[in-house]
């Protein structure tokens, strides 16, 4: 489903590569945790999947399509099919919870009626039905991350990318977020997660890819966090 074919990324000429000669395949429905120290290349690798970063060498495939060769319109379509959540939530601060989630549906061309039905449903899934009209600054970190997850999955994407989603959260909220991600994966969505958190990786108990200095150093089917 996803295939990184010998990809290398160098941000500045002469600097060392952020990602170096990586080949990695991900099957549909997998839950892959990518672990490694800061600067190991985890985020760069994920950003290549939705073309926010273009590889210097090699190619990234989503299905049978090479991401780097997609037209602008095709790229937008791809991005609507990949949900993304980040450590800093990246919500639209001037829009309330309903509008933040509705925005992802609107850009996908869904009707107002569909949106009015889907948004409360997905908020129920992440346990935030009572915050539907709140603005991001009125929510806690954990709640904001749950809104971000709701926005990421409302279009029922094939893949969910979670880049350090628990980095700013306390253990209780971290546990809740991991629970939600597992639930989403159980419903069939492929998940690529990057994290520093050992307990998160160990509690998931699925495939673990370990990166160091831009290279993959371990790839365990039922792995544990080990650096």
């Amino acid at each position, binding site marked *: 489903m996803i295939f990184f074919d010998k990809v290398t990324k160098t941000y500045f000429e002469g600097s060392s590569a952020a990602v170096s000669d990586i080949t990695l395949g991900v099957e549909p429905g997998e839950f892959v945790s990518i672990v490694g120290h800061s600067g190991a290349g985890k985020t760069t690798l994920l950003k290549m999947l*939705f073309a*926010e970063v273009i590889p210097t060498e090699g190619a990234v495939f989503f299905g049978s399509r090479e991401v780097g060769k997609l037209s602008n*319109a095709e790229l*937008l*379509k*791809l*991005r*609507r099919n990949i949900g*993304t959540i980040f450590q800093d939530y*990246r*919500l*639209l*601060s*001037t*829009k309330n919870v309903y509008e933040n989630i509705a*925005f*992802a549906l*609107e*850009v*996908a*061309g*869904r*009707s*107002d009626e569909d949106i009015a039905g889907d948004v409360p449903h997905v908020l129920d899934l992440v346990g935030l039905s009572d915050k539907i009209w709140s603005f991001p600054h009125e929510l806690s970190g954990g709640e904001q991350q749950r809104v971000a997850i709701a*926005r990421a999955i409302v279009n029922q994407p094939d893949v969910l990318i979670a880049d350090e989603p628990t980095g700013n959260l306390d253990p209780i909220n971290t546990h809740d977020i991991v629970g939600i991600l597992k639930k989403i994966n159980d419903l069939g969505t492929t998940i690529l997660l990057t994290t520093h958190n050992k307990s998160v990786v160990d509690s998931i108990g699925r495939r673990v890819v370990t990166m160091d200095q831009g290279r993959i150093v371990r790839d365990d089917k039922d792995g544990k966090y080990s650096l």
Partner: protein
Amino acid sequence: MSLWTTFKRIARYGFVGFVRNGFVSLSAILMMTIMSFMLVNIMISNAAMTATLQDLTNKVDVTVYFRTDATQDQVEQIQKSLQALPEVASIAYMSREQALADFRERHKNDQLTIQALDELGTNPLGASIEVRAKQTSQYEGIAKYLQAQQDSQAGAGAAIDKVNFYQNKTAIDRLTKIIDTSEKNGIAKTVFLAICALLIVLNTIRLAIYTARDEIGVMNLVGAGRWYVRGPFMVAGVLYGIVSSVVVLILLYPILLYHPVLIGLDPTTELLFGSFNSFAYFTGNFLLFFGVLMSTSIALGALSSYLAVRRYLNS
């Protein structure tokens, strides 16, 4: 998704963003209001200058005085030759009788003068032709032409007693210079202020959108098309323009009526201009002000937003 639905959503987000970013909207509106007042100042100053120069220009002429023994044929000949000149805008003929009647009317309270006139028994005043040129710079040419006629002393030229242009020459030359300089200055001032206003408004809106640059990134990431991201900001830019124009049009009534100095119009200049009244000009040309302010502000708001968002869309 239909185009109408997209348009509705863009317009709604633009309006909601305008209201929710109240402080940012307020500062953009304030800047555009200042720019609009500058525009009004330029419009009114130019109109005042034009009206005043027109007034002064109308007061300048070349007058040909004929000898008292000039025949009607000679006068008509000069009249026709003047009408044939391309520089001449109009001519006004005054007969000997009319000149005498005007003189008597002017001095009706001056018994001594009237008595002296009566004692003369004949009409001492000659006929005259008042000539107006299309442009002030053309008076000299007309005067020279008449002078040449007089100097030749041939035909109708012999009937000319005096051409009064040279008495007014200094005033006319000065006026011509004033007109030229003020027109050039007017254009330079307009261009300079317009560039300043454009830069100020552009930077204010850029700052407003700078605060939303991360959100633009998120919108890109969620898969929003360029126009879906850019549209609401442009709608907000248009709203800045509409609101600032309405504010300016409303405020102009009391300002022009009581304190034109507030927008840089000096009331003493207005006194000097005499016949020009900025309030009357504004109310008489309200549609012109409405059109110019609305179209300039809306275009500027939308264009500034477009340019500001483009920067973050490209990155």
